[in-house]
């Protein structure tokens, strides 16, 4: 379990992370999304003890990262795919990490097998492609067989086969009961990978919850009717905000279409057409992180 509680980080006059709070649970792949400069990487660095917060706490299984008795065996972190000495071979890189973490000598060969780099284990990392370095970064994270995996942009640099492989691996790791948190700006790919999302913008929480339910909560229902004013008033009496978007068309945001239809019927409003439009992750993301977005965070509890 990852718990971020009122986390704040300032760099001179810039507040990179601003009172951010969210939780990430086990058994699910959680996408950590936000536009460039939203504070995703800073949040991950604060969580992993690489930077000190100015306020709030970040904990993994109830403890700060630096207080974990066996950090590499508790958390596998892949923050950057360029954290290798270019002259060292893949297996030597992993042996150094395994020695420092007190992990078995056989484990580096095992994780190289998991990420499909067995053939290249004696190759210098400096000659690796971006995708191969991404796999080696993941191998490093998996060295300690951790229960929590934190990855910054794990889909970067992977070809379509690699993306599918990574997606299947992340699903398998979550299905094993691990907590998996990945940041990504590849929204279409992330949409196929994650169960839940945490969306941040300008260092603040914009939304959190299961992807499907967040999309439903921000969905729109369009009603074509000759009685637009009458329908808007009827919906308002039921606490539903609606607006006329064009002549003869009313749009309702977030409400259940069944409720809208029943309200219209009860008010004697003729409905010519009722359609529901559900945002995909990309539309949801832009909606939540745009300058027009409401300051309040949208939160949906996992069902």
């Amino acid at each position: 379990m990852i718990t971020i509680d009122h986390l704040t980080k300032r760099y001179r006059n810039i507040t990179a992370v601003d009172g951010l709070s969210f939780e990430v649970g086990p058994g699910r792949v959680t996408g950590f999304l936000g536009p460039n400069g939203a504070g995703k990487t800073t949040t991950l660095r604060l969580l992993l003890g690489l930077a000190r917060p100015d306020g709030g706490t970040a904990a993994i299984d109830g403890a700060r990262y630096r207080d974990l008795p066996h950090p590499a065996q508790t958390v596998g972190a892949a923050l950057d795919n360029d954290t290798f000495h270019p002259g060292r071979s893949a297996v030597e890189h992993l042996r150094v990490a395994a020695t420092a973490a007190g992990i078995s000598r056989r484990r580096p060969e095992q994780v190289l097998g998991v990420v499909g780099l067995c053939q290249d284990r004696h190759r210098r990392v400096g000659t690796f492609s971006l995708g191969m370095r991404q796999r080696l970064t993941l191998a490093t994270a998996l060295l300690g067989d951790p229960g929590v995996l934190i990855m910054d942009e794990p889909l970067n640099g992977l070809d379509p086969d690699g993306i599918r492989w990574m997606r299947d691996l992340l699903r398998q790791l979550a299905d094993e009961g691990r907590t998996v948190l990945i940041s990504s700006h590849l929204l279409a790919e992330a949409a196929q990978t994650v169960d839940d999302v945490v969306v941040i913008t300008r260092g603040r929480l914009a939304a959190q919850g299961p992807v499907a339910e967040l999309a439903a909560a921000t969905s729109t229902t369009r009603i074509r009717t000759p009685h637009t004013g009458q329908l808007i008033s009827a919906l308002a009496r039921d606490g539903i905000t609606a607006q006329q978007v064009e002549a003869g068309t009313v749009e309702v945001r977030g409400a259940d279409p069944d409720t809208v239809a029943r309200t219209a019927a009860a008010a004697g409003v003729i409905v010519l057409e009722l359609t529901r439009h559900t945002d995909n992750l990309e539309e949801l993301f832009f909606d939540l992180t745009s300058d027009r977005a409401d300051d309040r965070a949208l939160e949906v509890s996992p069902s």
Partner: protein
Amino acid sequence: MTAIARLTRAEVRKLATTRAFLITVAVAVGLAVIAVVVDAAEAGKNHTPALGTAASTYQMLKVGGVCCVAMLIVGIIASGGEYRHKTIIPAMLITPRRSAMVAAKTIAVAMAAVVLTGLTFGLGLATIVAELHAHGFSQLPPGTTRMVAGSVIAAILFGVIGVALGYITRSTTAAVVGAVGWVLFAELAILNTLAPQLAKWVISGTAETLTDPPAPGHTPATAAAVLAAYTAALLIAGWQVVLRRDVT
């Protein structure tokens, strides 16, 4: 195995798999052997001491300076290189207790200094003994052990200074330029001109006292203590920087 022992093993493994370290050791050893051969060939010519005299052997044994410079570079590569290649990120993820990481790095570099100095002096002495033997001489002068011991101490301390400079600057280039600039300009050009009586108490001066042949007025124990104090001050500064600075 204790955490420090485990981390030190990992640091030694890092050094052993870093080509720059292996090249530096090879260059230091090669230079030492070449210096001995050249000194032996030049002995007795152009008013230099004749082969077989204590002065000539001491001249051939003056390779401690090479060990110090080599270890300064190794120390800078060991710590500054972590920032250059961003390997500081996995290092700190595995060892979030940063003091332990600095301690392990310092111990590993000190061990490397003993190996490098041992190899350099071992091959240098073997070459000297062979040269002397070929010319009918069989004895090394009494100050040999003191020169070797002084050079080992100086090389260890220079290695640790390198580690500290790498952590303070977070850049191998800045650390090397800073170290060379300090010795050449601050110590040799400025201080040596303005206050020559202090020359033997600056970093390069104390190292010379430790690595040079025994001479009247030399106080190697005091020089070692002064150099150790400089080293400790720089290491504390580097350690504090590592503790306080965010890794970005």
